């Protein structure tokens, strides 16, 4: 469904991605793990056109993907960005409705809105509050809810569990699985590698801009190097 070929990205002089190849098949959850600054967010941002690559191509459904963000989104690709980026000057509800900006089906939008409220009752409570004054975790919920409103075919999640209470972290991962069940495809970047590998089908390990390992999530999780570097001692115990 989504193919990234030989991607090179630079920030000025910094070579952030050094020839990356990633593939995501229809209906699977693929996770990318890697330490801080490995280039995970950069990869997602390049796919959605926020960052322009210097070299390399991205194919979506075997067609070359445009480089302009709003056109990419129109294709059904949606990102929950790092740092949430909720619209602080708009209410919670407006934020959610903007998630459905490209959709025209009013009734369905409304249904999805109720759906999101069901998943995150907190958002319903705060419907009229300015998003900027939400707590960190509430903003994270909003960002995910907003992405769901777009009914994407493929969702790119950049650390969705960041700053969430443990109870909610569980919920989020459950939601991700639910989304998968709806037939959607997911590319997931997570620091919580343990959880991510648990729900993913396949995984890539990104180190300093290069893919160093790839394979089924189970294999990766079992890889001793990965266990040591990304899963902490909890698994090695």
């Amino acid at each position, binding site marked *: 469904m989504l193919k990234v070929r030989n991607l090179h990205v630079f920030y000025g002089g910094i070579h952030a991605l050094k020839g990356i190849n990633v593939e995501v098949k229809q209906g699977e959850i693929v996770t990318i793990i890697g330490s801080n600054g490995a280039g995970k967010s950069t990869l997602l941002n390049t796919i*959605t*056109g*926020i960052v322009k690559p210097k070299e390399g191509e991205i194919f979506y459904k075997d067609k070359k993907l445009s480089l302009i*963000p*709003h056109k990419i*989104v*129109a294709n059904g690709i*949606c*990102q929950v*960005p790092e740092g949430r*980026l*909720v*619209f*602080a*000057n*708009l209410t919670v509800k*407006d934020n959610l*409705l*903007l*998630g459905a*900006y*490209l959709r025209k089906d009013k009734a369905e939008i409304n249904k999805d809105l109720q759906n999101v409220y069901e998943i995150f009752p907190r958002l319903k409570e705060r419907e009229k509050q*300015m998003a*900027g*004054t939400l707590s960190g975790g509430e903003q994270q919920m909003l960002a995910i809810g*907003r992405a769901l409103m*777009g009914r994407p075919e493929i969702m790119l999640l950049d650390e969705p569990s960041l700053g969430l209470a443990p109870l909610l972290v569980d919920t989020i991962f459950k939601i991700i699985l639910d989304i998968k069940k709806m037939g959607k495809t997911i590319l997931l970047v997570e620091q919580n590698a343990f959880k991510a590998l648990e729900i993913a089908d396949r995984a890539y390990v990104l180190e300093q801009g290069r893919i160093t390992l790839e394979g089924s999530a189970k294999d990766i999780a079992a890889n001793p190097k990965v266990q040591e570097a990304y899963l902490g001692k909890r698994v090695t115990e």
Partner: protein
Amino acid sequence: MTGFIQQIINGLSIGSVYALMAVGYSLVYSIMNFSNFAHGGIIMFGAYFGFFFMTLYKFPFSIAFIASGICAALMAILVERVAYKPLRDRRAPFLYFIISAMGVSIFLENIIIATIGPTFRTYPEVFSTQPIKIGNMAIGRIDLTMFIISAVFLVLLIYLIDYTKIGKAIQATSFNMKASALMGINTDFIILLVFGLGGFLAGLAGVLFGMKYTVYPQIGNITLKSFIAAVFGGLGSLQGAVIGSVLLGIIETITSGYISSQYRDLIAFVLLIFILVVRPMGLMGKVTEDKA
């Protein structure tokens, strides 16, 4: 007493001049978060467009009026493309936009002086210059038109921004372009739209000013007052821009009429500072505590 009422009428009329400019300026401010000092230049061009459409090409007024609005809109878009977009692409801080805008405004004023010359030009008479008389008081016809146009546009714009999807997109874009793009919003288009709308209003304002006053290269300088009015009202708030404008108009006339015309602006400024000290976000601006 009639003197006082006449002064209030004067104030309202001056206020609607400010308002007509302030709405367009505030619209651009609300999305780009910087004071577009080239707005005055666009107004000036609008005045010239209207003048030439009517004298050189003999357009009837209504067509010249709309055509000037459209031409000014195109110019505003051009200015955005040339002077702001490159900065936007580099995510430059707002200061640089302001300087770029100042460069543009110097350019616009002087290109007129250098090409068609600094002479003052007078519109052919469209509206009767005879004011509408009510008893001893006079209300100018153009003033009334301006007042109506700013009110209509205010309502339209508020509707557009607060109640339509595109309006939400405008607000979202103003807050964060990256995130807006991720929602599928064509941010480039939104910005062009806003500049276009702002420019269109500037064009209409220009024609009306040209008719009411005269056409000359510095006519855009009166926008300074509308910037101040917009600050009075609370930056980025369209309602605020209009309320601030009318208020400033009335303050000015009352000061001239009853305190001192020589110190009018001084008193207006002192009042401005006083209002800002009491309400640092202007009259209609929202005060939000900084969320840490």
